[in-house]
């Protein structure tokens, strides 16, 4: 049994992918505007603000205001990117996103940095673990959670083509391995099978894609052939790829830096319950708030690292018929 090994080409933060994308977009399209709610250096909109001061709007610490201002800008042909930390991008202005963006089909890009428990030392209040659930339940919404720097950059750039409603793009604070390149396929709504396998399928998004790759290597070394699927788009969900994986491998592990309820795992379970019921194990934060600590420490403690994926794969294999 052999397995194509996926290498990391160094580390870079996914939020830097966002930063680089808006700089390119700013150059390409004079209608691109960026909104900041007083976290500019953290979410990396400061370079844009400096280069395009007339197209950057500081709204103060007022995320509800920001989302609706973005909607108002979209009404006069602007392409607004509203930036914040995950919790303050999704949870704080939920009702505003619902009415003024989703229901109103406003083509606003919600750019959520610092998502997940891996944001680390800031602790539970800043660890956005519910945002996939909140955003994917909204009609007209697109939800993307890219896996590395470049994929984030490509997702942000591609989001401009979505004009029938808002897009929520979820990414992370810390540096993480770069495993995609310009040749890797990337299409919103189309999952990528990164590693082929037929014993079990690991469906992951965000930082857990790399963890899944590493877990697959461990599993492979123990004689288990694990497929790894990068489900960067959580909505619209690539059901075809999921059902195919279920049929071909008969066992599913989902992995995400999110609560166990309502997120990617939940989306996959909904899909399979309707199409092809399959044993599934959830690698996710188990219905608890986080705490302060380093991102890597928390990934381990809260069971969303490669080791947890390996264990989950072994559990689900036992349940496979």
């Amino acid at each position, binding site marked *: 049994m052999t397995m194509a090994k996926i290498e990391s080409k160094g580390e870079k933060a996914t939020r830097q992918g966002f930063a680089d994308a808006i700089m390119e977009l700013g150059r390409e399209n004079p209608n691109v*505007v960026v909104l900041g709610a007083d976290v500019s250096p953290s979410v990396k909109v400061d370079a844009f603000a400096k280069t395009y001061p*007339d*197209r950057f*709007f500081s*709204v*103060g610490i*007022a995320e*509800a*205001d*920001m*989302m*609706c*201002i*973005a*909607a*108002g*800008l*979209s*009404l*006069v*042909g*602007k392409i*607004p990117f509203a930036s914040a930390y995950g919790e303050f991008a999704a949870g704080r202005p939920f*009702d*505003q996103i*619902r*009415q*003024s963006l989703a*229901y*109103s*089909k*406003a083509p606003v890009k919600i750019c959520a940095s610092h998502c997940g428990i891996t944001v680390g030392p800031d602790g539970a209040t800043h660890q956005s673990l519910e945002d996939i659930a909140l955003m994917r339940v909204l009609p007209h919404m697109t939800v993307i959670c890219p896996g590395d720097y470049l994929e984030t950059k490509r997702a942000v750039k591609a989001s401009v083509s979505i004009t029938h409603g808002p897009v929520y793009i979820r990414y992370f604070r810390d540096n993480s391995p770069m495993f995609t390149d310009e040749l890797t396929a990337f299409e919103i709504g189309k999952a990528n099978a990164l590693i082929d396998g037929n014993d079990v399928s690991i469906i992951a998004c965000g930082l857990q894609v790399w963890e899944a790759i590493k877990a697959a290597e461990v599993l492979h070394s123990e004689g288990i052939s694990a497929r790894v699927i990068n489900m960067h788009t959580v909505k619209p969900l690539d059901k075809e790829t999921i059902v195919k994986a279920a049929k071909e491998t008969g066992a599913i592990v989902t992995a995400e830096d999110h609560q166990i309820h309502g997120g990617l795992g939940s989306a996959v379970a909904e899909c399979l319950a309707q199409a092809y019921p399959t044993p599934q194990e959830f690698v996710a934060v188990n219905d608890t708030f986080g705490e302060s600590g380093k991102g890597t420490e928390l990934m381990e403690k809260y069971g969303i690292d490669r080791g947890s994926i390996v264990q989950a794969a072994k559990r689900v294999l036992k349940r496979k018929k």
Partner: protein
Amino acid sequence: MASSNPHKLNAGDLKEMARQIRRDIIKMLMISQSGHSGGPLGLAEIFSCLYCRILNYDPKNPTWPGRDYFFLSAGHLAPVWYAALARGGFFPVKELSTLRQINTRLQGHPAPGYTHGLPGIEIASGSLGQGMSIAVGTALGLRMDKKPNHVFVLHGDGELDEGQVWEGIMTAGHYSLDNLTAIVDRNFCQIDNRTDKVMELEPLADKWRAFRWNVLECDGHDVEDFLGAVDKAKNFKGKPTVIIAKTFMGNGVSFMQDDYRWHGVPPSIEQGKQALSELAPTKFGDFNRFEWEALQAMGAQDE
């Protein structure tokens, strides 16, 4: 098309149009038997002025780039807006009889044409408190493009309890958005009670001033007074302007006047007939499509 309002009624006609809008509201609500009477009736003069004199728009081309932008932040006031939009020419007046019915465009709270709503509506409202921020965004975008279009946003007074409104007000003040005019429907009423009982707003003008706005006050039932205020607002430079318009909830209908209990209740058929008898017919004419059948049907049910 040059910047203009397609109707440009004079003051006398604006008053008559206000009465017609009141008649339209009563009829809409008699038919729907669901929706808000009080607030909309109190805004008849303001909407008559906006749609038949002040706002620049082209009803045949609702997304004409030269238009002024009007946002109804307090979406429950939809009936008066629908009447004004219909009278303004955005859709047939007879369509007013479809309010709140399934498979129609006159949603309980406003929805834009590109969802399943109406032309002339830019964005959805209904969840209170969001319109100021939207108006700020549009005003910023217009200013960025050096466009002359003016932006209006209308708030209920109770709606000002919502913190997001103050975020938007603060942002508009910060950016000195003088292409933005806010109108507050100061009827001193909200759902539970009068505003001072539910949540005191006074000194209201001081609040806006402390948030860096130019403040005007006017009688919202006096067409000339309101037109004058809008004129001043549009010409004021360096700050956004708010017009605090004193109105009476339910204005024009004796038994509804200044009574917060009429906030969200439609008139019964009997009450509707009584209201219509207090509001003389106008030269603009009532809508008459499904109306009488519907009234008949409900009148029968009522008994």
